[in-house]
């Protein structure tokens, strides 16, 4: 079997603090296609990665507005389309419509927010080259990983040494999926 192409270098760290430090330094070194992996969300990792995405909160807001609008207009439309006169009470009664408006706002906000979260993360994606790294399952247990892809423009033969220098306990190569370029 021929030598498989390498997708990324996977550096393993013992604790979250070293990972945070390593992420900061990888970013300072100019790497762009890198990612940190941890068994739990780490305070400060977002900033270290330079992550500032508005999509999830924005989608939640817009989903909520859309849900509320649909909820309210649905009730107005149906009341006008089939008006029922109940002792002369107003056909369009916003007070009575507020509860369904609120519920559909919640539904719209939550569903849109979560769907956009999954889409932006590229999930579901059941197969990933990193799962082929024998120690990577520890990322959900107690180990911390920094992964630099070979597709990174800054990736050189020295990247492995760079990762070692950040305090990694080991550095593995993740093979590219077969058939992929």
């Amino acid at each position, binding site marked *: 079997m021929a030598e498989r192409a390498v997708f990324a270098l996977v550096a393993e760290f013992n604790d979250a603090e070293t990972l945070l430090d390593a992420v900061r330094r990888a970013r300072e070194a100019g790497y762009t296609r890198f*990612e940190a992996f941890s068994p739990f969300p780490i305070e400060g990792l977002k900033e270290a990665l330079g992550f500032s995405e508005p999509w999830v909160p924005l989608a939640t807001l817009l989903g909520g507005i859309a849900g509320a609008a649909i909820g309210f207009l649905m009730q107005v439309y149906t009341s006008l389309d089939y008006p029922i006169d109940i002792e002369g009470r107003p056909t369009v009664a916003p007070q009575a419509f507020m509860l369904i408006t609120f519920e559909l706002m919640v539904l719209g906000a939550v569903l849109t*927010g979560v769907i956009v979260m999954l889409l932006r993360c590229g999930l579901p994606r059941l197969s990933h080259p990193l799962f082929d790294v024998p120690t990577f399952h520890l990322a959900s247990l107690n180990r911390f990983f920094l992964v630099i892809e070979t597709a990174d423009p800054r990736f050189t033969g020295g990247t492995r040494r760079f990762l070692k220098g950040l305090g990694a306990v080991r550095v593995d190569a993740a093979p590219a999926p077969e058939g992929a370029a």
Partner: protein
Amino acid sequence: MASPKPKTPEGYAAVTREVTAIPLDFPQTRAWRLWFAAALALLASYIVSAWVLFVRGVGVWGNNIPDNWGIAISNYIWWIGIGHAGTLISAMLLLMQQHWRNSLNRFAEAMTLFAVVCGGLYPILHLGRPWRFYWIAPYPSTMRVWPQFQSPLTWDFFAVLTYLTVSLVFWYVGAIPDFASTRDRAKSRPAQVFYGLLALGWRGAGRHWARWRQAYRLCAAIAVPLVISVHSEISLLFAAGPIPGWTSTVFPPYFVLGAAFSGFAVVSMLATSLRRAFGLYDLVTPRHLDMLGRLTLASGMMTAYGYVADTFNALYSGEPQELETLHDRLFGPYAWCYWGAVVLNFAPLQLMWRGDLRRRPVVLFLVGLSVTVGMWLERYMLLFSSLFRDYLVSSWRNYRPSVWEWSLFAGSIGLFLTLFLLFIRLLPMISAFEIKEAGFEEKTEAAHG
């Protein structure tokens, strides 16, 4: 009495192993099978009762004018109310950064989900023609009739549907990282595939965590007002009508607090039982029991205030009908459930003032059981003491649930137990990654003073 605070890699691993070992290498097979057999027997009672109902119609039940609702609706309110505590523990305490919630939130949310399923089925079964339940949804039909959106019954449909969906999404999103760690610990191929599919390929990437956190916190922030809106809406099924004993503005907060109260009681029962059954003494610590006891006590005392306010309203109104309903509640044919509710809800609850008793699982369990029964009696009392004598003396009639109503109620407990037992058998019932996160954050805080 320290809560679990893993601060080292070994500590992190121990928490995840302890949690994921339960579904992967189930420790209590024999006891679980016995419980599951009992739950299935009750579930069979549910199916038979529903079948009899469908074949013979609502006449097999004891409800009739003026008591249209029967225990179908009082059970519905009871079940949905129990569900609310799960969302409150999970969402409200997440936003307030109460880390101790992490040992309780997963199974409390599962409880929410299953309680809402049990509750939500009741109004459908209660319809005279349950196969036409979709008529309450606004869809363009050839009849050209729309639902009447000024009626609380249509609000109910949207509230429960939204609550079920949002609870499911919130619970699932919160569990994805633990599905992933269960997948990574699984040895057998079927288990790997099962948890792998549930985990959606979660890898724990930093950017994914950041988006996940945004979504999870936003869901939590939205879920808290949702809980309040759902049970307020349910109380409006009562309060929006001109029925003595119901038409009161105290009802929405009274119902929401009673719901939280009954739910905290059930969470206490589940927490003490699971802790003992699976030896989770280092994850569900005496501190957790202490906090559950406090939550139950606080929401219980607020519910007690609701009783006082409700009585005061009736006295202050001076309406003859209101006063007569109050008299019926205190001394009439339904006095047993009024006083039963008062005693079971609030008498054993007073034990919870003492810290050493809150931390004793047996005491907490028994108080929880007493409150669960007491709140059932309260829902029963609120319904029937107001309905059995309406404005027309000619239609006065006492209500007694028929055998089929009782068997359906027993069956709904079976449905809950079946779902909950499947949950603890198959899924990680404690949020391992959040316990690790809390441990790490405490370590960092200690390091930086």
